[in-house]
């Protein structure tokens, strides 16, 4: 974990009420895809936990949707503004668990934390199939970016405006991708359905209202097969067999 000041490089609307913010600052604490940062916003007591979508040695990007007052304030922020972040939180995905081919199933902004994972897997020479679900095409994010990195991308929307009409699990059934390990991130009901419908090993990135974001307050504890675990520090990524939905 590292606490540091970051300068906003850009803060752009990329989908309906959805922004991508690039921040300049130290990223050494980010070790694995699926880790997150905790953003301090003036006027709000707690930080906002957001997955690191991608990063290089000098900057990182987060994607967020305006869902409350904190993200509303964030959406009005301008390049040059300075934010304090806790960086490098959580365990992240285990890219090594996949031997040859991975299925990444994501819903909504769940596309953000798995973005660097897909890049990493492809860099390791593994085949990556990404099945993305959104409510409607106005919500779609990162679709072209996943395609550009060489992933095999399939889409589902609830209203059929992009890809097949239905859920991520419907698209997976239609595509029948080959994989030896799966990764999933998105709304809990979606991840539950993905974990229930897929045989074979995989992992999911859970979400919970957090206090500290770094494991000291025990405010985000979930039940797992191996006992109580903190989503922020023991997770957010848990093995399929450990998760109690």
């Amino acid at each position, binding site marked *: *974990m590292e*606490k540091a000041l970051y300068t906003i490089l850009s803060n752009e609307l990329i989908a309906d009420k959805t922004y991508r913010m690039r921040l300049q600052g130290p990223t050494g604490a980010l070790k694995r895809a699926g880790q997150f940062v905790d953003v*301090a916003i003036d006027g709000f*007591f*707690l930080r906002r936990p957001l997955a690191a979508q991608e990063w290089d040695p000098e900057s990182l990007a987060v994607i967020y949707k305006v869902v409350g007052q904190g993200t509303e304030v964030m959406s009005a922020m301008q390049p040059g503004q300075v934010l304090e972040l806790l960086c490098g939180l959580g365990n992240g995905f285990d890219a090594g668990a996949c031997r040859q081919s991975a299925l990444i199933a994501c819903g909504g902004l769940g596309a953000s934390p798995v973005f660097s994972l897909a890049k990493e897997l492809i860099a390791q020479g593994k085949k990556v199939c990404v099945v993305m679900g959104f409510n409607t095409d106005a919500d779609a994010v990162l679709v072209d970016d996943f395609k550009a990195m060489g992933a095999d991308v399939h889409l589902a929307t609830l209203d059929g405006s992009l890809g097949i009409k239905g859920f991520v699990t419907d698209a997976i059934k239609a595509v029948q991708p080959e994989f030896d390990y799966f990764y999933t991130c998105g709304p809990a009901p979606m991840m539950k359905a993905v974990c229930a419908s897929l045989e074979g090993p995989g992992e999911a990135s859970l979400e*919970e*209202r957090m206090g500290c974001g770094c494991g*000291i307050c*025990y405010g985000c*504890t979930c039940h797992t097969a191996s006992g109580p675990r903190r989503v922020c520090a023991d997770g957010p990524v848990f093995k399929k067999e450990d998760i109690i939905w």
Partner: protein
Amino acid sequence: MVTEVNLCGVTLKNPVIPASGTFGFGLEMAGEYDLNVLGGISLKGSTLEPRFGNECPRIAETPDGMLNSVGLQNPGVYALVEEKIPQLRKIFGGAVIANISGFSLEEYVKSCSIADKCEGVDILEVNVSCPNVHGGGMAFGTSACAAAEVTAAVKALCHKPVFIKLSPNVTDIVAIAKACEEAGADGLTLVNTLLGMRIDINRRVPILANRYGGFSGRAIFPIALRMVNQVKRACKIPIMGCGGVASASDVIEMMMAGATAVQVGAENLRNPYASKEIVEELPVLMQKLGIENINEIIGVA
């Protein structure tokens, strides 16, 4: 310049202590900085048996504060004394405060005597003020009679200094503080969280799964300060001041109100380095205010 304070014979290099429930068992932050800068650590509240606590959401935000309804998640007092404290002792030489909660008089006594026998423990902090558990916790701390009964029972068996952590959710905190003092308490921790609530107006349901939760953070500082001062003026035993402390200036103010040591709580959750930063800030502020020995300001206001 002297920042050292003394709590019932236990010397702290400075008065700054992360409050129970906001700093885990200390071990969670061990990789982040040298914990030995801290005067002491009040460990996560422990009960006789392991507890999961309440269901999530357990956290809600408020203007200038937060609510929690963790509900005493802990691995039990045996894991505390056999695993957590020995591990912490390998890296931490400051005061270790074991925070104990319970659901019956017998449970308080048993857990406290187990913690009392643990070599690594310097002070027992008896939590009779947790608002997040049913049939225990706060029920003991909102009645002068019950608080005194717990105090006397624990004191009868324990040899280490016993601090009673009191609830602010009472009409007359002085009466309860005095009852604890008369029952033999060596000190008091003032105050635990205030019972609060938030509602999700879109979904029309309480944000916390447990409905209500403990309100803490900067917003409660004036209330905590007032209660510390009221009790200081009525009791002789030392006080650990707690509630909304977020800066060295708050530490000084809390000590002027009457605290001998000061606990930093919710601020650790917005900034896990807060306690360390306050320790660093303290001598600078003391110099600015012309305070040579921090003990000279205890209860001056």
